[in-house]
């Protein structure tokens, strides 16, 4: 389909209010392990800016960053942009603006303003989903920075492994769970979700440590290179 034939993307209407933004963004951010900054005046200021941007540019783009003009790239800075920068934000405990802070941060006042740099390669615990969002015996895909991971739950245990099968690059998170093994949906290669090992030679996949705290699943990954 050419761009000319593609239907226009739906965005918020001209009568959108800050309360409208709060009511849709809040529950979404919560599923990602974030909440609005505890500094309510600051939250109101950022949302007021986003409403200005909505009126001018047609969507709630991040007030701290500039659009590139490439629609695909610019989608990554529509608020809340947490899924596109989840490892970066987990490292600094907030989104770039500080509109959202990690759920486990009690006071967001100190997180306003400073854009701290964290050394690439630093191990970061990234909130990925509430435990309740993944049923025992199931597997789900998450993207952390540029990494594609499969999150598998067996009973009350949760595991994280690379999503990419080493055989033909099938998406393991679309596969089938069988005890502690996932079968790739494309050709049935089996991986142990605890270790990433498979019976096929030189085809193991990476695994990542998982922690569960206060009902949220965290995965520890090395921080990718920042591109704010």
């Amino acid at each position: 389909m050419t761009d000319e034939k593609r239907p226009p993307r739906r965005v918020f209407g001209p009568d959108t209010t800050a309360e409208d933004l709060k009511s849709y963004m809040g529950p979404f951010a919560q599923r990602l392990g974030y909440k609005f900054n505890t500094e309510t005046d600051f939250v109101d200021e950022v949302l007021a800016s986003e409403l200005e941007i909505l009126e001018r540019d047609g969507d709630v783009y991040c007030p701290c960053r500039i659009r590139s003009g490439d629609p695909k790239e610019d989608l990554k800075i529509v608020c809340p942009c947490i899924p596109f920068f989840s490892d970066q934000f987990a490292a600094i405990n907030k989104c770039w603006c500080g509109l959202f802070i990690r759920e486990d941060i009690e006071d967001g006042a100190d997180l306003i303003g400073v854009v701290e740099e964290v050394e690439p390669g630093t191990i970061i615990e990234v909130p990925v989903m509430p435990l309740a969002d993944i049923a025992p015996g199931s597997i789900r895909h998450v993207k952390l920075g540029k990494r594609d991971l499969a999150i598998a739950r067996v009973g009350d245990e949760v595991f994280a492994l690379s999503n990419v099968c080493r055989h033909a690059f099938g998406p393991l998170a679309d596969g089938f769970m069988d005890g502690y093994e996932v079968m790739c949906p494309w050709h049935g290669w089996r991986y142990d979700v605890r270790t990433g090992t498979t019976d096929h030679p030189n085809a193991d996949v990476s695994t990542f440590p998982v922690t569960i705290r206060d009902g949220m699943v965290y995965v520890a990954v090395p921080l990718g290179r920042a591109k704010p």
Partner: protein
Amino acid sequence: MTTHLYALSTCPYCRMTRKFLDEHDVAYELTEVDLLEGDDKTAAVDEVVRLSGGKSFPVLVVGDEVVVGFNKSRMNQILGL
């Protein structure tokens, strides 16, 4: 020493930075990048990327030093406040 602030007109941190600079009587050149158009805008964005490595605002340039975001302690330090 030249002080230059690259900002967005809609950005809360940019407003906070401008207020901070004004309150400390710091003279600076201001470029509101989102209000530029065409080649001027492209050139300003390229300059911000060159200076800061990204497209986050504000970007404050004081001589050879670059501060990204509203960072009071760094601004105090490099402006000698």
